[in-house]
């Protein structure tokens, strides 16, 4: 491993919250002194944010996702990153300009058609602002591009086929006390376009700030369907993003454990069900 790779690995470990305490302190003083190192850390973190926003990020990035999800600013940052990578991924590479030009012509025709239809729809029904919730208890939050697709009919807002709307995020907040065998668990209805199920968990009060937690999602048969990396509770709330593809229709139980050294202790269970719209 080269010196640069070692530095990068150290910074990555720091961001994930797994650098030993004494090394962490040394690094933090270095970060205050060294602008280049500090910028390298910002760049690494920003890259992780954009990779998370693009989807399919490694489970190792879970602590970063949890930290972002715990503050309004973090969520705004993730949304901004989502919009940017969505737009960048949709752009055709510049070298393939000829097919792009042909596509642009088709896009113009289609855009005109979409604009015409959107204008007619708005005339008939008024503007739609957002996707409507599918069931009480869960609200589909359109991703920025999806919001674009359903918004104002002005020509410059009409999405081109090159900008495929990103899947929406459905958020479900669960509080402690949802226990097995208790009352009916919350059910969430997912559309085929739902990309992410965001679970916002209210943590039990005994969870110490900064505690290391791990979440495991089990299906009705008790089989593990998803597992988080190490999570750090910044507040009384934790946010987990699970790819909707991981959640076929059925009942689920999310088990949260606190980890200290090699020991882990169960601290909460949350139950919910998933329905699939066809």
């Amino acid at each position: 491993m080269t010196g640069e790779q070692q530095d990068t690995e150290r910074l990555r470990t720091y961001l994930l919250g797994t650098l030993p305490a004494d090394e962490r302190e040394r690094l933090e003083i270095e970060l205050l002194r060294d602008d280049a190192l500090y910028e390298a850390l910002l760049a690494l973190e920003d890259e992780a944010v954009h990779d998370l926003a693009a989807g399919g990020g490694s489970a190792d990035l879970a602590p970063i996702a949890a930290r972002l999800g715990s503050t309004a600013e973090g969520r705004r940052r993730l949304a901004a990153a989502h919009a940017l990578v969505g737009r960048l991924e949709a752009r055709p590479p510049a070298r393939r300009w000829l097919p792009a030009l042909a596509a642009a012509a088709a896009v113009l025709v289609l855009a005109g058609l979409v604009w015409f239809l959107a204008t007619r729809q708005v005339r008939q029904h008024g503007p739609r602002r957002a996707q409507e919730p599918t069931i009480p208890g869960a609200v589909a939050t359109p991703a920025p591009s999806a919001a674009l697709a359903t918004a104002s009919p002005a020509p410059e807002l009409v999405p081109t086929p090159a900008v495929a709307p990103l899947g929406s995020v459905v958020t479900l907040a669960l509080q402690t006390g949802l226990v097995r065998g208790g009352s009916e668990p919350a059910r969430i209805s997912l559309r085929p376009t739902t990309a992410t199920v965001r679970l916002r968990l209210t943590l039990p009060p005994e969870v110490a700030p900064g505690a290391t937690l791990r979440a495991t999602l089990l299906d009705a048969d008790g089989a593990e369907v998803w597992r988080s990396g190490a999570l750090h509770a910044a507040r009384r709330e934790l946010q987990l993003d699970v790819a909707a593809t991981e959640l076929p229709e059925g009942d689920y139980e999310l088990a949260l454990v606190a980890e200290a050294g090699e020991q882990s202790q169960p601290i909460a269970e949350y139950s919910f069900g998933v329905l699939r719209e066809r």
Partner: protein
Amino acid sequence: MSDGEGAARRREWTLSPAAFDRLLTALDADPARAGDRYEQIRRKLTRLFEWRGCVDPAELVDRTFDRVARRLEEGAELTARDPYAYVYGVAMHVLQEHWRASAREAQATRGARETATAVEVVTEGEEELLLGEQRLRCLERCLRDLSASGRRLLEAYHAAPPSERIVRRQALARDLGLTLNALRIQAFRLRERVQGCIVDCVGREGEAGKRIATFRTLEREGSR
């Protein structure tokens, strides 16, 4: 002075303009450079607290600087050449106090644990959605404002599917004759430029929107 008196004095202490000037002078004898250094340490400390999981880092940074300024008033010395270790030490004390206070607060609310089954709906306000639309318009504009090479670099950097990200980025770095770290920083600076441009653009559009709304209100009032 007893511990109790000391604690009372610490609680009563507030940052005066003179104490702030003393703090700046300790950071650098040149006032302009001292101001830059103060801002730079402030920015970095804010992120360090964030990375440590603090929800309100700005408050902890204020407390850190207040305490450094108070200690300077009490006779402590800061080495202008390297004030970082000292400031960092104070920041870590502030952080530990913060964690202890949070733990006490958690202990106090332990009895109030809810047992009822409850599902909360999280909604996104219409205003937030509209802002999203505005941001997307600005994003388009800001991407257009980037140089062609900058746009190409960002597109190539983010084009790879997750499983190929590392390999593709390494190949891109090789093609450009850069180390992976240098490429990462270039991509970061470009994204920062775009995001900064979006913030400015949204601000400008917001101001324009307010002016239009004011004009329409005046127009309506005039027509009555």
